[in-house]
């Protein structure tokens, strides 16, 4: 088991490194961040900016310095020194993400400010997703083929066909603009205000996930409720509620745990769109804003964090599967 987990962690690190390298080449090799940051600047200003950010160096030199393997090439960095031998390292290995072109402050500080907001939003969304998904999935399974089940399954199917950028603006229009139950966007001033502002975007983000969980939970529950040990439990005289909750749900939950890991990717891309609809100042908004402005250090940090999130999700899913199914860890 340990060997399998180590192998998976190694692979996850490799994927993150591959993605970061790809985006690095894309940003610095093909894009022109200086021109994009200072669209109206003359050649001298551009040259000055390139020196300050180390953009005048070759791609390889920039890359090694960005990783923190070789000394700093960005003149704007405090680690840089006129004297080449006195330059310190200022890369990822030192926990330095560089300086944001747009925000004029260290990327780490920008990310540190934005990340908790996205975690709050996704956390609420995940909670809504799981509560609604499991509840409706179990109810539909226990009332299989009733009008509730049929109607519910149809709406769940519609639910997976509703993109967030469609539901978001519609919710905004109906619940914020027309009825005024929720704010029209933004972040709020204190914690409970943040939560209040997060509710509508979180609900938007949760619809697709809730529908997916519900569909899988329903089919798993139907499968489980058919099995022998459920019949035994019933024969022993346990109440319907006890059979469903204690014996049924517990076993049907296993695939849901796996799915939760895999759904990190969906949650991440969902956050990008939802945050932009509701002007929620988190990582998703930061992603779009920095990509738009070719703010390369910020883009790289965002991609790094999102890739790591997705990898952790996949990793947990794989470990859960391996833990539950010995064939995977022994065969792989």
């Amino acid at each position, binding site marked *: 088991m340990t060997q399998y987990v180590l192998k998976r962690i190694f692979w996850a690190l490799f994927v993150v490194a591959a993605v970061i390298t790809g*985006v690095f080449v894309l940003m610095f090799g093909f894009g022109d961040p200086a021109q994009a940051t200072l669209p109206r600047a003359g050649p001298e200003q551009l040259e000055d900016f390139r020196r300050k950010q180390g953009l005048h160096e070759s791609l390889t030199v920039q890359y090694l310095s960005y990783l923190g393997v070789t000394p700093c090439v960005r003149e704007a960095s405090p680690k840089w020194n006129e004297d080449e031998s006195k330059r310190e390292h200022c890369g990822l290995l030192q926990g330095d993400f560089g300086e944001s072109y747009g925000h004029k402050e260290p990327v780490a500080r920008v990310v540190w400010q934005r990340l908790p907001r996205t975690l709050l939003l996704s956390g609420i969304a995940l909670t809504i997703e799981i509560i609604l998904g499991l509840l409706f999935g179990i109810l539909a399974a226990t009332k299989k083929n009733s009008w509730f089940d049929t109607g519910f399954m149809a709406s769940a199917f519609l639910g997976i*066909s509703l993109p967030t950028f469609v539901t978001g603006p*519609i919710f905004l229009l109906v619940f914020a603009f027309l009825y005024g139950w929720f704010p029209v966007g933004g972040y709020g001033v204190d914690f409970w205000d943040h939560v209040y502002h997060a509710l509508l975007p979180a609900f938007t983000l949760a619809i697709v996930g809730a529908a997916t969980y519900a569909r899988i939970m329903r089919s798993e529950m139907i499968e489980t409720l058919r099995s022998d040990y459920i019949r035994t439990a019933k024969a022993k005289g346990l109440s319907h509620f006890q059979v469903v909750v204690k014996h049924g749900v517990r076993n049907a939950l296993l695939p849901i745990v796996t799915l939760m890991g895999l759904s990190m990717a969906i949650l991440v891309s969902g956050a990008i769109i939802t945050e932009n609809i509701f002007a929620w100042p988190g990582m998703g908004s930061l992603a*779009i804003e920095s990509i738009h402005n070719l703010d390369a250090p910020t883009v790289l940090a965002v991609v790094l964090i999102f890739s790591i999130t997705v990898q952790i999700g996949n990793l947990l899913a794989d470990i859960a599967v391996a833990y539950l199914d010995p064939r995977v860890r022994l065969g792989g």
Partner: protein
Amino acid sequence: MDPRAWRRFKKNKGALFGAVLVIFVTLLGALGPLVAPHDPNEQSRDVLLRDDGTPLGPTWDRAEGEPAEGHLLGGDTVGRDELSRLLHGGRVSMQVAYFATAIAVFLGLFVGVSSGYFGGAYDFAVMRLVDVVLSIPFLLIAITIQRVVDTPALWALFVLLGFLSWTTLARVTRSKTLQVRELEYVQAARALGMSEARVLLRHVLPNVLGPAIVIGTTLVAQMIIVESAMSYLGLGVQPPNASWGSMLREGQEMMGSANRLMVFPAVLIVMTVFGFNLMGEGLRDAFDPKD
């Protein structure tokens, strides 16, 4: 292909409804621009914008003194004919979705069948590549590439989406090919001296076509979603070209005064995605009637 699959599909009411929606939006994309009454990018501010800057409403919702005929759905935020933009935007969205899917299906089939059939180091390398592509944050990477490439050319967008979306199909066709390769009649064909190309074409390909059609259908829905999402974020189809996603974004700016500008593209997007998903689900049941 299995004639029983077609019979099962025909009996599935949901799938047929999906197919009707698919045919409708496909025709809309193909013929829409031909029947569009106006140039989608032409701004007629004096006709389509009121004095207070709000767009002219649809024909059934106009004040006295405003033109009663023409411009069926009124104008958009800057005075362009809304109906013509919806029709042209439909073509853009459908084009991107269909072509991206075609690329993805072709790549997925090619990679999946070849790596399943030939195996070895090639198979190993290709499947690791699939793992990497499958576990990158798709939307984020697509947006980044689109921004750096920075071209209004539509083909760049569908090539990009196609090259990011072939992996699921490659995995499925690979495992199907592995199964088929071991079947006795395939072994027999090879033993009798049938060429590899012929075995692939006559025996392997027909067997992987079912899953390819199913995945391809749901892939169109996903491509519509991704393209619209990118255009909604301002990093997909570039202005002045219309796409349903970018129209939704522009419409959101008029929230409260002209909600229809948001609702029209939203309804069309949902209808398209729902149609393809429904048809895909029906095809899955038809080809693989386990449940």
